[in-house]
């Protein structure tokens, strides 16, 4: 195996470890120097020269490991502006503009002035900002190089801090963005000075014009598909369309990658070759195979910029560029080596790309296809009698290879298993490569020369894409092939990947090493699958960080899971259940619920439950009032899944089937005037290993009256762990509750910088003075409290582990 693969593996290993633990830059450089000098020693003076390879790899791992933390840091200005936690006015120059779904758009800009209440803030360097515009960004009013001003909250990208969560800050930084902001309408963005010239500006302008032209001339249903296919504007596809395409496993056709550049390149090559062939002098000077690919690079580069410079396009372009240079130099390389070299170059340039889903899918898909090349290029395939049949067999093998190679990544990133991909690609790849894409490209080429012809071609392309979409829709409705959402832990995804390694390497290895590899992979996969996931303490309470809202998971060591509330944000764009809770359950190994308790009918407590009810088996839903009185969306979800509902009778009642201590629930009943005061309250009392009594009280969203009623009904003590009522509000008489209970640990679930200014600062200060240790989700992320010998032991979720 060439050195390159070892280095790439070392880089990926170092970065993978970095997501859990990383070393400082100085330490890393000392370690690197040490490793390299030892490597030099072993190479030159020792009898074990192979050790030097290991040490070199270790040095590379250290380098990438330290780079991770260094890249993930925000500059001081970003934190300072974020801490202001109010609207500021920013002025800067646009660098890129993208159009998104439903008339939304995204403007990247470099801001050099930030004004806080008429006072300019000093910036160490210009900040790169991503501005989301909710409405009206569909024309070319704003273009790169324009200088604009707007007022809004500038935010530092933050993690919620739940297990298995999508790492938003890492994603944003890997795209070279420092801060994000949001405005309702493009009207709120003022043009300070119009920019001039520049390649990017003209290309973005052209893209917006073509997009507008397609939107105007092609029927609305297929216009977005044509734009996605030809211009790489996949982000403007409606959510439902995107989900259907992903479920059918054909969304890769709408991400500009090797396929698109390959077809464009083939066209360009054919065209240039007809001219090149006319000149004997040129043919005698150099073979066109050496010269034309280099001449085509500028065309591909313009297309790369036109389609928005996505990672997969860059990968394809880099491969094409380096490949054609090496061809010019007559330096033959194995395509897999070239792919690995490009991957390493990308990671050197930006180590955070390793976690970018498009980077992973792009490289692994290409690697899978190349690994299986001996099969799909095999003589048996190329000798098949009929060209169409040969082409179909090749497409099947190629898409099978790509699907297998990307399966663990699709599971890991999107939690999606799309078995339809194999069938769908057989139909969709020929439609796209032979018809829709070439026709679209010719349309793109004709657009500036002869618009009516371009419109016709776009319409033809759109017609085929519409058929493709209908086919995907039909396929995903067919239940054996429908996409499944699976939520597992990281080690389980890794186990799946290990199971697929032998299948992918089969065409590359001789039988004996392959057998050894297979046995090794199988054993490691079994081990990884079994790896302990959740907690093994008698009682565990996990308070998920779900923003402004609340969701708690109560577990015991007999495998009983009770979910109390499901969080939920008021906006429609972010489904807490899908984005935060489901991945967290997967990471913690929770696959079913014995009970879901909904404390009261407020969106910040029930909204996230809808997705959980849809995707996870739930044995019982516990509520305080008859189900009909709850929000219709929730009621629908419960009825659709036929979840048995239990209405708790007023006063205290207990759950007899709970196996660890006594679990009781309190319902204030209909006497409560508002929903908060009607919150269900949960109490657990048990004994720890040393024989001391321990207890917890989860006080829902009770306000003053509710707390009084609860105290009148009789508080179950001790409650050494207290989930503060109503997100730590100052108006819930928490002090009185605390003085009765004398708890040691307090939990608060609140959103970062929430508009309600919860939790109450004075309350928290008071309670801390009284000796209560407070854990809050906005600052600590997800908090897990386990019962052990010394009572409750709290841990915070940080950098991928509970610590």
């Amino acid at each position, binding site marked *: 195996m060439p*050195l390159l693969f070892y280095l790439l593996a070392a880089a990926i290993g170092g970065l993978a470890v970095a997501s859990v633990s990383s070393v400082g830059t100085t330490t890393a450089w000392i370690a690197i120097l040490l490793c390299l000098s030892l490597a030099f020693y072993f190479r030159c003076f020792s009898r074990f020269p192979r050790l030097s390879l290991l040490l070199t790899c270790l040095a590379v791992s250290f380098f990438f490991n330290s780079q991770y933390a260094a890249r993930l840091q925000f500059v001081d200005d970003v934190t300072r502006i974020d801490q202001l936690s109010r609207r500021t006015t920013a002025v800067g120059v646009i660098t890129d503009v993208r159009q998104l779904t439903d008339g939304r758009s995204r403007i990247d800009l470099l801001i050099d002035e930030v004004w806080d209440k008429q006072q300019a803030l000093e910036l160490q360097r210009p900040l790169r900002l991503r501005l989301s515009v909710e409405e009206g960004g569909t024309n070319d009013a704003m273009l790169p190089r324009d200088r604009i001003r707007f007022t809004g909250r500038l935010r530092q990208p933050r993690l919620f801090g739940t297990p298995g969560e999508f790492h938003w800050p890492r994603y944003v930084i890997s795209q070279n963005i420092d801060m994000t902001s949001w405005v309702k309408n493009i009207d709120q963005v003022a043009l300070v000075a119009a920019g001039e010239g520049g390649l990017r500006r003209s290309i973005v302008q052209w893209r917006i014009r073509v997009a507008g032209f397609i939107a105007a001339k092609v029927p609305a249903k297929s216009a977005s598909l044509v734009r996605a296919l030809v211009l790489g504007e996949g982000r403007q596809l409606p959510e439902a369309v995107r989900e259907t395409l992903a479920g059918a496993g054909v969304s890769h056709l709408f991400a500009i990658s090797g396929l698109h550049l390959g077809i464009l390149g083939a066209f360009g090559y054919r065209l240039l070759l007809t001219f*090149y062939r006319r000149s004997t002098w040129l043919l005698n000077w150099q073979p066109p195979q050496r010269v034309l690919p280099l001449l085509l690079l500028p065309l591909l580069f313009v297309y790369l910029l036109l389609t928005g410079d996505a990672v997969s396009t860059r990968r394809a372009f880099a491969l094409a560029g380096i490949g054609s240079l090496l061809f010019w130099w007559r330096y033959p390389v194995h395509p897999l080596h070239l792919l690995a070299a490009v991957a390493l170059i990308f990671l050197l340039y930006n180590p955070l790309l390793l976690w970018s889903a498009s980077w992973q899918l792009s490289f692994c898909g290409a690697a899978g296809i190349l690994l299986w090349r001996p099969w799909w290029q095999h003589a048996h395939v190329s000798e098949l009698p009929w060209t169409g049949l040969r082409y179909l067999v090749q497409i099947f093998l190629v898409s099978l290879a790509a699907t297998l190679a990307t399966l663990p990544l699709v599971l890991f990133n999107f939690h999606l298993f799309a078995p339809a991909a194999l069938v769908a690609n057989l139909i969709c790849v020929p439609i796209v490569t032979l018809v829709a894409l070439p026709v679209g490209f010719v349309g793109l080429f004709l657009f500036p020369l002869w618009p009516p012809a371009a419109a016709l071609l776009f319409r033809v392309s759109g017609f085929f894409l519409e058929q493709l979409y209908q086919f995907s829709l039909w396929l995903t409705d067919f239940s054996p092939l429908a996409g499944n959402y699976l939520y597992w832990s990281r080690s389980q995804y890794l186990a799946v990947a290990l199971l697929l390694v032998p299948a992918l390497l089969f065409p590359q290895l001789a039988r004996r090493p392959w057998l050894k590899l297979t046995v090794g992979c199988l054993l490691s996969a079994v081990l990884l699958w079994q790896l302990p996931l959740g907690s093994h303490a008698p009682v565990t309470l996990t308070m998920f960080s779900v923003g402004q809202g609340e969701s708690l998971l109560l577990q015991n060591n007999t495998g009983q899971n009770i979910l109390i509330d499901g969080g939920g944000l008021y906006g429609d764009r972010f489904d807490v259940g899908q984005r935060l809770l489901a991945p967290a359950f997967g990471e913690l190994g929770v696959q079913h619920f014995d009970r879901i308790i909904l404390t009261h009918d407020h969106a910040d407590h029930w909204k996230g439950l809808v997705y959980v009810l849809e995707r996870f088996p739930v044995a019982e839903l516990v509520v305080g009032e008859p189900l009909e009185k709850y929000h219709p969306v929730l009621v629908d979800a419960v009825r659709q899944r036929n979840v048995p509902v239990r209405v708790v009778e007023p006063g205290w009642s207990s759950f007899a089937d709970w196996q660890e201590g006594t679990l009781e629930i309190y319902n204030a009943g209909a006497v409560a005037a508002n929903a908060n005061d009607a919150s269900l309250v949960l109490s657990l009392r048990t004994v720890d290993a040393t024989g001391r009594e321990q207890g917890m009280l989860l006080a829902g969203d009770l306000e003053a009256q509710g707390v009084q009623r609860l105290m009148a009904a009789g508080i179950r003590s001790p409650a050494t762990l207290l989930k503060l009522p109503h997100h730590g509000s100052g108006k819930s008489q928490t002090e009185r509750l605390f003085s009765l209970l004398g708890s040691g640990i307090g939990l608060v679930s609140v959103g970062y910088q929430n508009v309600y200014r919860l939790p109450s600062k004075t309350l928290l200060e008071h309670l801390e003075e009284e000796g209560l240790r407070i854990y809050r989700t906005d600052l600590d992320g997800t908090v897990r409290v386990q019962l052990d010998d010394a009572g409750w032991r709290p841990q915070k979720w940080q950098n991928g582990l509970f610590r």
Partner: protein
Amino acid sequence: MKLTVCWNWLGHLLPPACSLCGGAFSHLAEEPFCPGCMATIICLPQARCSCCALPFASSSALSPHLCGRCVQQLPAYAVTYAAALYQGPLRSVIGRFKFQQHPNLDRPLAGLLLKYLPAQLDVDLLVPVPLHPFRLRERTYNQALLLARELGRVRRLPTAHDVLGKCRSTSPQQSLSAAQRRVNLRGAFVLNRDVRGKKILLVDDVMTTGVTVDLCSQVLLAGGAARVDVAVVARAPLG
């Protein structure tokens, strides 16, 4: 020096692939193909025609002599340098080089030929066997020219692609006998430049019957060339 170091490191990181089998091999070996593929290439035996390099059936070590055909009609060229027999994998790789648009096979094939060329060549000019412009457009390059350029680059000799020209497009010769080839090619080659007094090495990829190079040599000698030798990558055995 520095370039060599860079080259070595590049070779370690990104080892070149063998143009025959596609597998990676050490760049330090300085062989045109990987050891496995080199083993499949059959060298020309010592027992061969001293003029046209036709391998003799018997390998008995006789003093150098001509083959039957050369005795009957002595070719115009003096000596033929050939690297290997036109057989097995080498035959298919030359086919790829010629017909399947793999121009980059010129370097390894020229490398193979260079191994068997004498270190001291008494030659002034390298001349490739020409291709008719029509055929050139079809194939997009003249494989003999690419080989000649590679030889010229390594041995620091000038290459002239316009010395010989093909004025008549001829039908492919693969299925023709030597006599038919001679008829087919008669008058097809013309001299475009003055070669008086030059010692010329005529370069081609394969020599099957030797008719093509013989006709080319005749044209060159008629134009006043002092001497014509022939270098080919592969020499077809008799029959």
